[in-house]
């Protein structure tokens, strides 16, 4: 048997390889009866492997030169029809098989825009020819179905430059298996760490880290994890030793990758971090002084609890959620936008459990003038729009692709998409809809008890169905959204909890456990899957209490690590062996500037002395917030925030008229200090505390005092210039 398998393997090279169990064999084992060729099982993988049905070629909508295949071969009926029935049978000629366009085009015998893909002597060509000779059947009766594929090995630890050939095995419903390595498409999510070639040969790069290599065959996936540790010896990461589960799980990954952890950061760094992360501004002079001077051994824990209880917590975290939910007031109207913003803020003010927050949003009803959450359904009006946003925001599942074709890196297809969309089929709207240009009217959201969603191709009416698992039955007359919300927010739905914890982790740590933050899938695994699971479980067991989750993370040693790298972790940018410097968010930076200069910003459509984090729409003009990359309200959905430093930001911080006025204002803090009789040394200390959240060291104090004591110096100008200079450094602009 094995010898025979080998001969089949050589005979068909890598294309129709090992077949075990399901086909008749030749008597002598050398001249096999050709196995029957099934379109879906045998031909589709060839079309996929050689790119025929890929997006740029015949897989695109409307096809290529009139010949269209389903993207990546997810619709075999459609593709078989396209090959055998359309174009007056020229694509496949049963009478003269070699004249079939399916063969003459990709072999280069007829002109082909895509070039030569399958030379005449290639195994792929031969397989297609055999299939046409056999009558080009759609399916062979009793063909076993593909159940799964497995890649072997599924993980390996590599030295730099080491290689590993992957083997992919397909398992069928009759228990048979095949080696389909030659027909598998491979892709690495981190090529510099580990690259893979088209035959499945993995080569580790020169970079330390882990890469996921996806193997895709006939719509099935399997993942190979490549770990490439830093060469050399390292001990346990000492600075995060302890019993905090976050530290233990981070430690585990660091050990696997041969990485060290940085030292724990000094008090002033921790102080500044938690203020920025929890309430969205740096500490004031007094707040910094109080913390730094305290001898309480538990002062970090006490501070975290105080900050979580501070009303500014709600405004800061609501501002983050507003980024995700906020509509354009020109689209839905000012009052509806304002109400919605207020609803979001209120949820954070009362520390509403996250599952309840999402349930209220998904099932919102009533007037957009009264119930802020109803604006969600004024802004997103069609079941398909709602499907895309709800799945991505709350489940980290990007269904957008599946709207028009099967998701290329996922198991979801159009039927899954529109069955999910059916949950929103009965959302009724009364009152005045969207009416450009202001859309200022009131609208009512209700369950209208009628309405359906159809599959765009089959036109079949689809009943509501979640994208995985089971949702509660929808009783007659009930709002289907209730069932959806119950399924989504169930403690058993790991996607729900993990998406939120990944968002919060990203906010606190700069880099997500999963990146992008809302793209959770097997083919895009977390950098530390156990940690993601732990945080998700913790969040569920604390009844989706966001404050408790934040507290859990910021009181880990991992959170408090210094940003300064060691010799054995400088290469790490995603496994949390050190803190990663992060530019302050636009609103945080502006609110901190206001706090330091003591000159408020004047925002239109806001009460006097409002803070940037309280703005209810990005439409409220601010050159500062624009320069520092707040989302663009003109884009739908808004462009992501720019988090890198840019020249535009630097120029703005240095030169903008507005900041110049704040620093030099007669009513500002610099003027107040100058007018006072406070000694220069005290002024310098105050400046450092207010801007850097720390005392100046002796050298810094000397330099500062010298500025004031120079004979020609003007106290006012010196105070302004020192303030300007301190604010124009990375120690101010970054969370370190």
């Amino acid at each position, binding site marked *: 048997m094995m010898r025979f398998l080998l001969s089949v393997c050589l005979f068909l090279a890598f294309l129709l390889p090992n077949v075990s169990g399901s086909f008749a064999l030749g008597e002598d084992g050398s001249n096999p009866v050709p196995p029957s060729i099934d379109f879906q099982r045998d031909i589709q993988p060839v079309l996929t492997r050689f790119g025929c049905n890929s997006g740029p070629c015949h897989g695109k909508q409307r096809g290529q030169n009139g010949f269209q295949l389903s993207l990546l071969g997810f619709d075999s009926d459609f593709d078989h029809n396209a090959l055998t029935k359309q174009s007056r049978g020229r694509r496949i000629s049963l009478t003269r098989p070699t004249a079939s366009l399916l063969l003459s085009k990709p072999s280069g015998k007829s002109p082909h825009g895509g070039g030569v893909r399958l030379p005449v002597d290639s195994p792929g060509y031969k397989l297609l020819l055999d299939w046409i000779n056999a009558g080009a059947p759609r399916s062979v009766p009793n063909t076993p179905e593909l159940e799964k594929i497995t890649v072997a090995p599924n993980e390996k630890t590599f030295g730099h430059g080491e290689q590993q050939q992957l083997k992919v095995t397909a398992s069928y419903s009759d228990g048979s298996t095949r080696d389909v390595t030659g027909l598998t498409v491979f892709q690495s999510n981190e*090529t510099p760490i580990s690259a893979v070639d088209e035959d499945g040969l993995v080569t580790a*790069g*020169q970079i330390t880290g882990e890469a996921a290599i996806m193997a895709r065959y006939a719509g099935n996936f399997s993942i190979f994890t490549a770990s490439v540790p830093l060469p050399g010896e390292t001990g346990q990461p000492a600075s995060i030793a302890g019993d905090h589960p976050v530290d233990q799980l981070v430690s585990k990954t660091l050990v696997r990758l041969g990485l060290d952890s940085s030292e724990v950061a000094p008090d002033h760094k921790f102080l500044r971090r938690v203020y920025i992360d929890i309430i969205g501004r740096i500490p004031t002079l007094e707040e910094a002084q109080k913390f730094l001077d305290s001898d309480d051994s538990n002062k970090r824990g006490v501070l975290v609890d105080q900050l979580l209880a501070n009303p500014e917590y709600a405004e800061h975290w609501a501002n983050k959620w507003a980024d995700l939910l906020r509509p354009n007031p020109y689209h839905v109207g000012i009052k509806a936008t304002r109400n919605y913003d207020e609803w979001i803020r209120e949820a954070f003010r009362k520390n509403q459990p996250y599952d309840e927050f999402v349930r209220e949003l998904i099932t919102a009803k009533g007037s957009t003038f009264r119930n802020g959450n109803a604006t969600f359904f004024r802004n997103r009006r069609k079941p398909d729009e709602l499907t895309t946003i709800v799945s991505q925001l709350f489940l980290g599942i990007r269904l957008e692709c599946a709207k028009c074709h099967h998701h290329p890196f996922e198991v979801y297809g159009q039927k899954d998409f529109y069955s999910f969309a059916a949950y929103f089929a009965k959302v009724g709207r009364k009152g005045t809809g969207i009416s450009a240009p202001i859309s200022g009217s009131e609208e009512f959201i209700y369950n209208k008890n009628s309405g359906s969603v159809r599959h765009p191709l089959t036109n079949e009416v689809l009943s509501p169905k979640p994208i995985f698992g089971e949702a509660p039955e929808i009783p007659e007359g009930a709002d289907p959204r209730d069932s959806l919300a119950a399924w989504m927010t169930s403690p058993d739905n790991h996607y729900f909890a993990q998406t939120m914890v990944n968002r919060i982790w990203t906010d606190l740590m700069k880099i997500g456990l999963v990146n992008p933050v809302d793209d959770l899938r097997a083919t895009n695994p977390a950098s530390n899957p156990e940690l993601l699971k732990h945080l998700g479980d913790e969040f569920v067991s604390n009844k989706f209490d966001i404050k408790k989750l934040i507290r859990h993370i910021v009181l880990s040693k991992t959170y408090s690590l210094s940003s300064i*790298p060691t010799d054995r972790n400088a290469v790490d940018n995603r496994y949390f062996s050190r803190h990663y*410097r992060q530019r302050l968010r636009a609103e945080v930076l502006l609110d901190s500037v206001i706090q330091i200069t003591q000159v408020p910003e004047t925002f239109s459509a806001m009460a006097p002395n409002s803070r940037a984090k309280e703005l209810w729409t990005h439409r409220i003009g601010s050159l500062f917030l624009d320069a520092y990359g707040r989302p663009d309200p003109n*884009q739908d959905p808004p462009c992501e925030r720019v988090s890198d430093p840019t020249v535009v930001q*630097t120029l703005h911080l240095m030169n903008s008229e507005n900041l110049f006025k704040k620093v030099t204002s007669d009513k500002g803090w610099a003027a107040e200090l100058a007018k006072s009789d406070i000694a220069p040394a005290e002024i310098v200390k105050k400046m450092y505390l207010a801007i850097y959240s720390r005392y100046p060291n002796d050298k810094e104090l000397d330099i500062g005092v010298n500025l004031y004591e120079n004979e020609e110096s003007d106290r006012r100008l010196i105070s302004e210039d020192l303030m300007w200079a301190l604010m124009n450094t*990375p120690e101010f602009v970054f969370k370190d």
Partner: protein
Amino acid sequence: MASNKNHSSLSRNCNGITRRNCLQFGLTAAIGAGFTDLLKLRSDAGEKAAHLPVKAKSCILIWLDGGPTHYETFDPKPNAPTEIRGEFFPIATKVPGVQFSEHMTKLAEMADKISIVRSIRHNQGNHGAGNHYMMTGAPPRIPVGCGAFVSFHPSLGAVAAHDRGHQNGLPAYFSIPSMSRSGGPNFLGAKYAPFVVPDNPNSSSFRVRDVALPRGLKDDRFANRKDLRTIVDQLPRFENKASADPARSLDENYTQSYDLISSPAAQKAFDISSEEDAVRDRYGRTSFGQRALLGRRLVEAGVPFITLYEGGWDHHSDLFKTCKKRLPEVDNTVATLIQDLEERGLLDETLVVMLGEFGRTPKINERGGRDHWANAMSVLMAGAGIPGGTIVGATDRQGYSAVDRVLSPENFASTIYRKLGIDPNQLLYTPQGRPAHLVSDPTPITELMG
């Protein structure tokens, strides 16, 4: 994926590029690509790349975002059936036998000074992907949708900036009035991101915001502040480039900002009001017209690369109505720019290029538009020794596909690099030390190399 169903959201995404200068967007994890050891990179590049003869000191890249139609500009097909040839008629040009479409009148009159490449084709029919391929000469590594703003490879402008460095305090790469998609520096680092001038030079109050010192701040006090800033800045920087310390990118930004603020050349270039009215009128009193004039002023100031971004060329509907209005404006402005450069003796050392990410479908759709089509497009090139009157390649009789002298975006990028004296065959290194060929196929379009 383009589809009829979501047309409206598509065109919004397609044209809506953020008004701010997003430095780097990517589908890949951009971690670690934020900062580059610039000196190392430069010396590496210097060792490996023999410098080529420089034809062009500067390049003005006019980017018609969305994918301008080849039929209604430089590749009319009068003999194609009605549903393909469209409403416009061909016109004769200065070059016998060569026809343009009817609204390109001024460029037709100077066809002996410009070249049209009619045979570039590629396989990326989405805006995000097409932008990336044409703007960097490298295909996107993974499928990229229409609305996406991706970066896998440094753009033409960023590479030019990297090669030349900034001069006279001016950034080496401008993008006006916004960054084009994929127009960023990728692994070259934020220093080579375009400097974006969002302000409208057609406005009487035009000034480049934040480059001028705030009113009331005297030069000497600004100098004192600058010194003081250096003294109080004590945050440690991480030397290991793999640590991707963002504080070091900030340092680069301060250096560039100081250079820009103190540059007389910059202040002069930005002072568009010193231009004579007649000249401003010739360029057209539109924001695009005045931006082109600003582009010429930046060329005079020695800026190596200027992108003039002009959105709104994604004509899925009402193509003829829109083109009737917009093509004559573009025709006038671009013709004026080329002529003005020539009159000032700058054309021989300035490369002018105009294109978008792809051409448009042969068959006019039911909404009177044409859809995305990467099998054919027309690219205008002039100056820097580009032989005038040259038409490179051809599409088939109906304009479906480039068939004669089929060229790739790689050939296009290599042509620009060679004109600028940059070796497209050089190896660059990412901050992780991974080598990357500047262009995988370094063959330029030989007909244009003179």
